[in-house]
């Protein structure tokens, strides 16, 4: 059950934020942020800690309301200034948080089943979709396990599977790989990219890691101090960086194209 009419979703961007502003006390967290994610597109939102990335995720999910501006999902207005128009549970989105937020008291199957049953998917269909998704992420034999019994990589797979099994309008990934070691991160970037592209599900991938953004994003939006300072493909950004900040942020990436993330070279971290 979603609160967004399907007609509205036909030609509109999957996600759109228009001139969104948000203050926490005296601080402007977001200052007139505008961005959109097209159908089937993965937009990487790249920015250092404190730039407002996670706040964007909260606004899109409906966990907070903007002070100004609008948020749209599939063309339908879901939040406007000071108001959550459509509550989170009716937006039809999927999410993977940084801490994954797997429900520890439920099995892997239970984690995947929750959203399906909440959205009224019949039991038979539910089982079929869960089985197919677990097979796709290689966790068929772990369906009866609880999250505490899984390895770090398996937990990441459950989290992405839990979001995608819902066949959401769009999926939001808030730094899901940041707690992993380099090798596991490299492996999971490949898994995530394959899953997102084969299903054509639009995604907003939030990260502070340029290599992840380059590997996963069809486009990259660079966030600095609450606003998007540049947006485009990796090549375009690298060819004509809009500011020394963007140039510095992308400096670590090896030309000519996106590569899976490797060990970070020494230097100041963005996280």
């Amino acid at each position, binding site marked *: *059950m979603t*609160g967004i009419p399907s007609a509205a979703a036909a030609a509109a961007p999957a996600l759109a934020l228009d001139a969104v502003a948000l203050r926490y006390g005296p601080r402007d967290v977001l200052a007139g942020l505008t961005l959109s994610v097209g159908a089937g597109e993965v937009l990487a939102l790249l920015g250092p800690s404190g730039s407002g990335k996670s706040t964007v995720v909260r606004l899109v*999910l*409906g*966990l907070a309301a903007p002070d100004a501006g609008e948020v749209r999902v599939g063309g339908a*207005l879901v939040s406007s200034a000071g108001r959550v*128009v*459509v*509550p*989170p*549970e*009716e*937006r*039809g*989105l*999927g*999410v993977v*948080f*940084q*801490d994954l*937020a797997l*429900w*520890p*008291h439920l099995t892997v199957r239970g984690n995947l089943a*929750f*959203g399906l049953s*909440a*959205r009224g998917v019949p039991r038979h269909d539910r089982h079929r979709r869960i089985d197919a998704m677990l097979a796709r992420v290689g966790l068929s034999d772990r369906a009866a396990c*609880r999250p*505490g019994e899984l390895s770090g990589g398996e937990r990441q797979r459950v989290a992405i599977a*839990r*979001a995608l099994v*819902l066949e959401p309008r769009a999926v*939001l990934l808030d730094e899901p790989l940041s707690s992993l070691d380099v090798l596991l991160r490299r492996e999971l970037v490949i898994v995530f990219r394959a899953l997102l592209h084969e299903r054509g599900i639009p995604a907003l991938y939030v990260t502070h890691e340029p290599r992840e953004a380059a590997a996963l994003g069809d486009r990259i939006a660079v966030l600095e101090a609450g606003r998007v300072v540049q947006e485009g493909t990796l090549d375009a950004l690298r060819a004509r960086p809009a500011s020394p900040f963007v140039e510095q942020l992308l400096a670590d990436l090896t030309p000519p194209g996106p590569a899976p993330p490797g060990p970070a070279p020494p230097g100041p971290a963005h996280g």
Partner: protein
Amino acid sequence: MGAHTLEPARWWRRRQEPLVLAVVALLVAAAVLVPLVSLAAGVFARDGAAAFAVLGSPRVRTLFARSLALAAAATVLALAAGLPLGLWLGRATFRGRRVVLLVHAFPLFLPPFLVALGWFHLLGRTGARVLLFGPAGVGAVLGFAFAPLVTALVALAVEAVDPALVDAARAVARPARVATHVLLPLAWPAAALGGLVVFVLAFSELGVPLFLGVTVYPAEVFVRLAAFGNLAEATALCVPLVAVGWLVLVLERALGARPLAALGLRSGLRAPPPPAAAPRGRRLARAAALSLALAPALLPLAGLAWRAAAGHAFAHLGGRLGDSVATSLAAGAAGATAITALALVLGHAVVRRRRVAAVADALAVLGFVVPATVLALGLVAAWNRPATRLVYGSLAILVLGFVARYAVVGVRTFAVAVAQASPHLEEAAAAHGGSYLQRLARIVVPLHARGAVAAWLLAFLFCLRDVETAILYYPPGRDPLPVRIFALEANGGDALVAGLSLVQVALTAAALAAVAALLLVRRRHPA
């Protein structure tokens, strides 16, 4: 997309949280405010001006000042004993530390007059006359009885301190300096909260002053009602008590929500590292601290046990217990269940900072900080009517009183459990389509089942020890065990009363053992 265009199913999904919260808030308001408002209305309806004249009498003013002084003395003593013990137990690593804390805390879950009774038997009549009877004895008994509250809050606060902070300080300073300059300032909000609660409990206390022959302000209210049947004057005497309760509520709010986290079961107690052999000096200090922690808990119990055994009381207990144990257990269980049901909704909403929950939570705190006599009189005024005889004449009135007075215990305990988990767990459930009730039933409550059980057990313990509210309105022939002991104590039969007290001790120990088991069991599902 206005609400009027929504189909009923979606309308209900969107309104679940505000509606459920409103119902729960109304129930808490009904439990706490109806008695207080009825009390106020009753005074004005019965020639209130004349009744208020009693407030001007020198005797009343003296009693009020004495009660304040006794509560302050008990608070100072509780802080003096509980603060160092809490700092020590929060950092100590010896095996059995949890058991020490539980034994130390045991008197907190007994009606304080039982502790006074234990000291009385231990000291003997002559010793008690010198050391126990009088204001100093009242302050000492209450101070030691409530000190574990400060100990537990400070110990939990100290445990929550990042070990790196202590390690960094230890690199440059001795343990004593680390305790006074790092741990103490960090634990101070918890200690202040503990002091506040001790003051409230001591100020409300009726049984200990009556037993030790000291007339205090709440006793005056009790006497005006029970001996003279003068509800108007008794109610007028409640006005300063309400003012004190309100002041305490304001102070509690000023302390903020953070220290209140320590009121519940933040993490149980962390598992201590393997004990290391301590040098002789430290072993002596530990022995002294252990004595301070355990003696005030165990000695009164030893006094009760000695008196009951010497008087061969155990053979005659059955006849005098009557239904009181069943009444205590039934009313306590029903009260704890009702409190937990409210707490599941309200405790969660408090953590999620819902505005209605903040109001309801403040009312629950008010029910706890308003002196027990006031609340009890309010319940009498509200429910002792022909139309509500069914409630007033049954266990329901006891349950209502327990909910009004101890709802905050359940609410805060469950709130602490919810606050420990990442909010993302629930936000993910919302984003993936779970409505409020689905999230509550399938995520929040199962995830925090341990917190819910802890809320029930703690609420049950508080209901089980209650005497100061129930004594004014218990239904005929359905007196809970503490009330029966209190009544019998006034009529002699030392050994029998000591024996009945031991039954109360056993019931409390069984419930506390369940709490301990809950705390000691490793979390199955770390959030």
